[in-house]
Structure formats: C-alpha cells, structure tokens
C-alpha cells in the first residue's frame, strides 16, 4: 500500500483533508493512504511527500526563495 504524508502547520478542517485525499488518490491510485502531520516549520500551506516525490507548497519555502532573491 502506498502512502502520502501531508505536513502542515495547522490541523486542516475535514473538508480540506478530504479534498486533498481525493485529489491525491485520483493521481496516485485509490489504494493511496494519506497521513496528516502537524509541522510548525511549514508556517503555512503544506508539503506532500508521496512516491519519493515531494510537492512543496509551503509558505516557509516561498519565504526562503524570497530571501534568496532579495540577497542577490
């Protein structure tokens, strides 16, 4: 059974969790198990880790990119 780990800074409401699970299963297969983990370092948004692929939609990463751009 394949697994997707969704890391977020806050506990998502039920409908959001369901939407994410359904969307991920559409792409990765209905046998996909989804696990939601609270991680403050994300700040906002989420990071999805599935099939050795990481989909980083976190605010933390966006801020890091912004910092890098400003330092140039």
């Amino acid at each position, binding site marked *: 059974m394949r697994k997707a780990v969704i890391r*977020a*800074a*806050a506990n*998502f*409401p039920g409908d*959001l969790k369901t*939407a*994410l699970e359904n*969307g*991920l299963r*559409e*792409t*990765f*297969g*209905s046998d996909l198990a989804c696990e939601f983990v609270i991680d*403050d370092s994300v*700040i*906002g*948004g*989420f990071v*999805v880790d*599935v*099939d050795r692929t990481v*989909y980083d*939609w976190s*605010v*933390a990463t966006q*801020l890091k990119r*912004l*910092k890098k751009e*400003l*330092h140039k």
Partner: protein
Amino acid sequence: MKLSGDMLIDLIINIASIVVLFLIVRKLVYKPVKKFMTARSERVAGAEEEANRRAAEAAAQKEEYEQKLAALETDKQQAVRESEEAARAAAQKIIAAAQEKADSIVNGAQKKGQEAYDKRLEAGQDEIIDLSVDISSKLLARNISDDDNRRLAEEFLASLKGERHA
C-alpha cells in the same frame, strides 16, 4: 818771518817726503784699492742685476700662480653650482617620489575605506532582509487561514491534473 837755511831744507825734505810717500802709497795702495773697488762695484752691479732678474722671475711666477688660482676658483665655483643643481634635482626627485607614495597611500586608504563602508552597508542590508523575512514568517504563521490553505490546495490539485502515477 824769515826762513833759515835749515828750516828751508827741512821744509824741502818734508815736502819731498810727502811726495815720495804719496807716490809710494799711490803705487802700493791706490791701484789695488781701485781694483778692489772696481771689482766690488762690478759685484754689486752683478748682484743687483741678479736680484732684479729674480724679482722679475718671482713676479712672473706670482702672476702665473694668480692666474692658476683664478682658474681654480672659477672651476671650484662651477663645481659648486653643478653640485647644487644636482642636489636640487635629487631633492625634487625624492619629494616627487614621496608625494606619489603619499598619494598612493591616501588613495589606497580611501579605496579601502569605501570598500569597508560598502561591505558594512551590504551586511546591514542583508541583516534587514533577514529580519524582514523573519518578521513576515511570524506574521504569516499567525494570520494564514483555512481559506488560504484551501486556495493553495486547489492550486496544488489543479497542477496535479494530467499527472498520472497510479
């Protein structure tokens, strides 16, 4: 006064004695003395001539030495002038080199100062950027809502459409 015969004879004898004495002295003394005096005069004249000659020689030498001294003095003054000019030129060179070095040091220091200032400014700007981003992250952490997360989830899922990993 009437001269007697004896007195007359004495007188004649005296006069004759004087004449004979005169003749003898003239013969024995006058000529040698004259010869001596002539020789002496000649010697004196010769010595005077020699002295004049030597005086003339000395005067000529003196003039020659004075001319040489004058020439030496001219050479000496020329040498002094040349040394002064050389010293002036060397001093100018040293001053110019020192000025160049001083300018180089000042320019180098100014450049270093400017570089240090630019570095500090850059470091300050970096600090401001880091601080701003940190403050932003704290604000965002407090203010991100469920609706914001929903929007992100919609965008994420839309980007997944078309991918197929099953």
